[in-house]
Every structure is written in C-alpha cells, then in structure tokens.
C-alpha cells in the first residue's frame, strides 16, 4: 500500500461513513418538519403528531450529532490528504464548500438546538420555523456538496492556468447539468432512506399494536415519502446514467462491462462473469434491445466499449496509463444499487396499493409489515453501492480529464496516513456500532415509554421554573 492507496481508502471510508448518517439526516429532517407542521395545525385537538415528531425527532438527534462531526473530517481531509488537489482546484471547489458551511451548516447546527432545547421557550410557530430551517439547511448542504462532487465528474466554468484550475464562470458551475442530476438523485435516495427508516420502525410497532394512532399515520406519511423518493431516484438515476454515456463514456462502459463497442441494437448484460485481466467477459446473460433503451430510450442506440475508449483516452490524456476503471466493482455495485432501487419502489407501491384497496388493509397485512422491517438496511446498501459506482467509475481521474488521483495526493508519509487511518477506523466502527445500538434501542422503546427511560439531551432547570426543556412525550397531558 502506498500513500495514494491509503489516502483513497481513507477518503472512501470517511465519505461513506459520513453518508451513512447524513443520508438519513437529510431525508428525516424533512419528514420531521412535515410531522411538526401537522402537529402545529392540529395543536390543541390532537397530540398524535406531537408524539410522532418527538419520537422520530429523538432518533434524528442521535444520528445528527455524528453527521456533524463526520462532516468536519470530510472537510479537513481535502487539505490533509489531498493538498495537491486542494491547491489545483481550490479556486473553484472551495467555493461550494464554503457556501455549504455559510449557507447551511450554521443554519442546521444553530436551529437544531433552538428546535430541541427551545420547546418551552419559543412560540409554536417559531419552533416550527426552526425545524423547517433545519430541514431546508440539510437540503442546501446536500446540494452544495453534491455540486462540488459533480464538478469533479464534469468540470465546467474553469480554465487551467499553469498548475491551477481557475474559476471563469460560476454560473456554469451552479448550472452544471451533472450537479442537478446528481442532486436530484441524492435527494431521492435520502428520501428513500428516511422513508424506509420510518416505515420499518412504524411497521415494527404496528405488528405489536403499540400506539397504533401514531404509527399507522407515520406509516402512511413515510409511504408517500418513500414512493416519491424511489421514483425520483430511479428517474434521475436513469438520466444520470445516460448523461454519463456522453461525458464519462468509460464509466458507462464499465457499468455495463462492455469491452468492445456494442452493435446496434445494443443488448444489455444482466449478469456477467468479468475477467479484467484478459479484458473480456467469460459469460454474460444478455437481453437484447435493453442496452439501447437504457442508453438512449430507443431500440437502435449503440455505445462504446472499454477497449476502444481506452485507446482514445490514451490519445486525449496521455499515453502509458490504463484508463479502465475497476470494472467488476463498478458493474456489480451498479447492479446491486439498481436491483435494490427496483425492489424498494415495488415495496412502496405495494403499500400504496394496499392503502388504496380498502380501509385497514395496510395496517392489517402482517406479511407486508414484516417485509418492511426486513427491508430496513437495503437503502443504505443501495447508497453505498451507488457511490461506489460513480466514484470507482471515474478512476483514475480525480477531476475528470484534468487531474488523476495520484497527482492530487499530499506529500505525507505512509506511517502518518496509516496511523491516522487506523485511528479513524477504530472510532468509526465504534460510532457506527453505537449509533445502530442506540437507534435500535430507542426505536424499539417506542412512544409509550415513560420519560425517565427516554433520556435525550441533558436538561438544565431554567430559573427554577420546573421547565427543563422537555422531550415532549405527553408530559403535561
């Protein structure tokens, strides 16, 4: 292992670890804001939505803290591990990153405290506003980060002068089509993650007849959310793949493990045994026409293969280097992501169908509720494999066509990076274990647990009024 490999591994682990938390945070913030809105408009008449938002809000907070702190690692690592990259793109890449912090990160971190601790000190509409600002903040955050990432895949609005890429047109960076596609896709997947998170927990409690008022409503809310999320992900994902065929043809070919240029009409390989050494597939289950449909929504489109693209890239970006990404990884990650996406979309629409068919069918169909519980980990796996597809697919480039990964790395020693990596991994594994443990514990406890057993953030007693920032589990009711 050299510094490049170690730094790549470090970056990948931090990003995936960060995203494990933030994908839930981004989606759940919005879902909780919707719950709070219901609670606000039904205040005085029903406490169902209060209980719902307190319960899921508690889960949200457990997750949020880790999202924030891992965000710091995410940002620092550009300078720490990729200083050459930072110097090359700082003029451009730094701007969305700074915008994210100034527009969104502060907003989330400040108003999350106001929302949670301010339960008895803000007017109801202010609290509602606070959670909406958190929700909006998370979406803005996500947008700028994904935009920065998209720039690395599809650089626009720049000019390379000497050894730096300089910003020439910021509007081009903001209106980078790739950024909007990626951002819709990540948005959709965050909604899917949060939707299925709430679905699984609600189904779990409905199976045990706990607080049916809360959980059957949460189930319906999350079902709509999950359905919209999966459709969004699928539609934007499909478009993003087609766009990749134009601007990152190598990635598209790797996603399909297409070594030679496809004929017209192009078949689609559903499963394949890939031999990267010999640059061919030893076996492939091919479905005719589907390749063309995926590539261009018609029955005649063809697309380029890895080998001829590699020759072309040699001419474009310099000889003496292999431009073929790790095909097996990209191919299988892509299939796992798409497979899970289709499965989840099916599950969401099955739920909508049950809901529509007759009253009580949704809450009463036990096999369906059980299935929802089992589906819980899948959105995260889809997220992970999705990032693998897109990030592995751009290798060996860090900024597509401009800077390779080994050119972007810092001049650190193997010892430094390895020690740091081990330290981060120990903490990451610990945190992910604790997060899952605490989320499970809290989720299982449900809304019926008395306050004493659900201890969220620490409570001061303000002015001896007996008002200690509440958790809100029916204390005064």
């Amino acid at each position, binding site marked *: 292992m050299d510094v490049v490999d170690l730094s790549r591994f470090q970056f990948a682990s931090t990003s995936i670890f960060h995203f494990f938390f933030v994908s839930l945070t981004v989606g759940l913030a919005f879902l909780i804001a919707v719950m709070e809105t219901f609670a606000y408009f039904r205040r005085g008449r029903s406490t169902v939505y209060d209980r719902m938002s307190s319960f899921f809000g508690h889960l949200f907070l457990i997750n949020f*803290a880790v999202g924030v702190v891992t965000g710091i690692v995410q940002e620092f690592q550009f300078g720490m591990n990729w200083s050459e990259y930072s110097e090359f793109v700082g003029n451009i890449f730094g701007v969305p990153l700074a915008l994210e912090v100034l527009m969104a*990160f502060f907003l989330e971190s400040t108003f999350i405290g106001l929302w949670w601790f301010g339960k008895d000190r803000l007017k109801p509409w202010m609290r509602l506003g606070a959670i909406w600002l958190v929700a909006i903040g998370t979406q803005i955050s996500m947008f700028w980060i994904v935009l920065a990432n998209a720039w690395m895949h599809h650089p626009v609005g720049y000019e390379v002068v000497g050894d730096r890429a300089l910003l020439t047109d910021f509007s081009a960076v903001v209106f980078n089509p790739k950024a909007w596609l990626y951002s819709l896709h990540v948005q959709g997947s965050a909604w899917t993650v949060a939707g299925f998170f709430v679905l699984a927990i609600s189904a779990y409690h409905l199976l045990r007849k706990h607080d049916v008022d809360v959980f059957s409503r949460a189930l319906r809310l999350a079902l709509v959310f999950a359905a919209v999320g999966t459709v969004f992900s699928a539609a934007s994902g499909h478009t993003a793949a087609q766009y990749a065929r134009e601007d990152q043809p190598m990635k598209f070919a790797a996603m399909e493990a297409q070594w030679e240029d496809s004929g017209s009409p192009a078949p689609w390989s559903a499963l394949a045994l890939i031999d990267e050494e010999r640059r061919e597939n030893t076996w492939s289950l091919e479905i005719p026409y589907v390749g063309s449909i995926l590539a261009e929504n018609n029955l005649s489109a063809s697309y380029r293969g890895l080998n001829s693209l590699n020759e072309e890239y040699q001419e474009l970006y310099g000889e003496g280097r292999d431009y073929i990404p790790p095909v097996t990884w990209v191919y299988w990650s892509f299939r796992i992501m798409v497979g899970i996406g289709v499965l989840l979309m099916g599950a969401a629409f099955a739920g909508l169908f049950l809901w529509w068919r007759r009253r009580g069918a949704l809450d009463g169909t036990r096999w369906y509720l059980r299935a929802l519980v089992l589906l819980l980990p899948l959105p995260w796996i889809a997220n992970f494999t999705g990032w693998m597809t897109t990030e592995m697919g751009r290798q060996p480039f860090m900024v597509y066509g401009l800077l390779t990964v080994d050119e972007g790395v810092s001049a*650190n020693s193997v010892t430094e990076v390895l020690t740091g990596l081990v330290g981060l991994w120990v903490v990451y594994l610990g945190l992910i274990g604790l997060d899952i443990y605490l989320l499970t514990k809290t989720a299982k406890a449900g809304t019926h647990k008395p306050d004493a057993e659900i*201890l969220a953030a*620490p409570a001061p007693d303000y002015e001896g009024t007996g008002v200690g920032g509440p958790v809100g589990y029916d204390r005064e009711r």
Partner: protein
Amino acid sequence: MDLVDLWFWLIALTFTLYFFLEGFDFGVDALRPLIAKDESEERALTGTIGPFWDGNEVWVIAAAGVMFSTFPVWYGALFSGLYPVFVVILLALLLRGVSFEYRNQVDSQRWRDVWDWMSFLGSIVPSFLWGVVMAKIIEGMPVRDDQTVGGGLGDVFTPFALAGGAATLLLFVLHGANFLLLRLHTDTVLYRRARTMAFVWGALATVAILVFVIQGYVTEGLFEDFGVLPWLFPAAAFLTLASIWLALVTRRDVLAFVMSGLTIVFATMTVFIALFTRGVVLPSTISDDLSLTLEETASEPYTLELMTWVGAIFLPLIIGYQIWNYYVFRERVRPDEGALDRGY
C-alpha cells in the same frame, strides 16, 4: 484594502470567533470533573453549553472552508503539514460531538462516566492542539520548494508550540470558568466552585501566556514587525488578563467573561498580525525564500470577489441568528434533582 488582504482578515476573524466561542464550551467540559460532583450537577453544567456548542463548532468548519476557497495553497500546506495534529483534533472532536448526544441515552452510571471522559478528553486535547497549530503558523514548518511541507513530529512539537498549546488550553479553561459564572445561578454551590476555578486557572493561564509571549519575543521575534506599536497587543493582552482578576475580585462576572474573551481575541489577532506584517502565511524553516506568502497562496480575484459577496450576505446573517440563539437561552441554570426523572 485589496481582496487578498480582506480575506486574510476574514479568516483571522473566523478563527478568532471559533476560539472565542468554542473556547468556553471546551473550558466548561474541561472543568466538569473538577466542578460537578453528582449527576444533577453534571447535567446542569452540560446544560450551560447544550444549546450552543454545536453552533460554536461550525466556526472551525467555516474557517477551514473559507481558507480552502480563498487560500487553497495555504490550506493544503498547513493541513497536510500538520497531518498528525489534525488527525488527533478530528478524533477528539468526533468523540466529543457524540458524547453530548449519547451520554444520556442509556441509564447507567458507567455508560455516562465513559462519555464524560470522552467529552473531557475531546475538549482538552483540541484546546491544546489548536494552540500548537497557531504557534506553528508563526514559527513555521519545513516548507519545501514545491510548496509541500516535510518534517516529522519533532518539527511539530517544539518548545514554542508546546507553550502555545499550554496557553490556549489554560486560557480556554479560564474562559469556560468565566462563562459558567454567567450561566449558573449565583446561589448555587456550582457557581462558587466555578469562581474558585476562575481564580486558579486564571493564575495558571497568566503564567502560560507570559511564557508564550516571552518565547515569542526571544526566539520568534514575534512582535518585531508590528510597526510603530509593537508592544500594543501584548500590553492589551496583559491588561485584559489583569482586569479578569479585578473583575473576579469585584464580582463583575460579565466583565470577567468579556475580558477572557478579549484575551483570546488579542492572542489570536497577534498571530495573524505577525503573519500579515511579514506578508507570509506559513514561514519555511528551511529557507526564508520558500515561505508561503499571502499573494501566492491566495485564490484568483474572481473567486475572491465571489466569496466577498457570499461573505457579505451570510456572515452578518449567521452572527445575527447565533446572537439570537444566545438570547433565547439567556437564563441561568441550576442543578435540579428532578432533571433526571424528567428525562432531558
């Protein structure tokens, strides 16, 4: 003032605000084992910073983000050059950030003790290391001719860097004690303990700052290029330190807090003024010619213009709603037996 200078000072401002704000929440956590004797007192102490620490912490993300976009070369050289230091800071911040949230999720004393340790270590370690980072910015790193930084741990933990670390750590503890005087009910035992702590740590902080300043004079020539009034900032720092003592004796809590805050501001500003007057953002210990200068590490004018618009719109907004946040949670806190049962 051109945009390069403006952004240099805005970076100085974000670091200063970060040290001012997170300085006191680090300090409160560092003092917790000394002040809080039981669970309700622990909770009261955490309650003093509960609504604020998260927003405070974002200032460091802002500092790094702004540095990345406006001085990418400086950012890359500093963060990769001090790699081991930043790894430890990150690990500490990771554990501290979750300790607030995780501490009360399981009703077991051992569980809480573990997280109390995490937040304690997660506070004193970065408090110390940020001082090391600031000292290294003045003292310099082995910057090579390709703008990368070499050197090992021996180049990082020099006597000057250690003095810098001790100074920030002790100053933050003092700042935390002063913050507690504002946030705790004056008739509680916690308040009285916090007062004692302010005296004790105030004295220690004064010694540490003295050492740091003397070292700055003698070995670093820290104030040589300060222009007409090279003694102004150290003098101001001493005045503020002295007035903390006076404020404590005369029981002017607000004044004490403002003064420990001003000491942090002056100390941080001293670092940045020292850089600015030399026109250097990271001196090279190999050769003066290799030092990274303001101009060569900065982004191009277009990026800086853009960032100026962004900063002009959002910085006042952020400062505004953060002030409002402090206003909402302005009441003093007291430990209360019932706090645990009420669960929060």
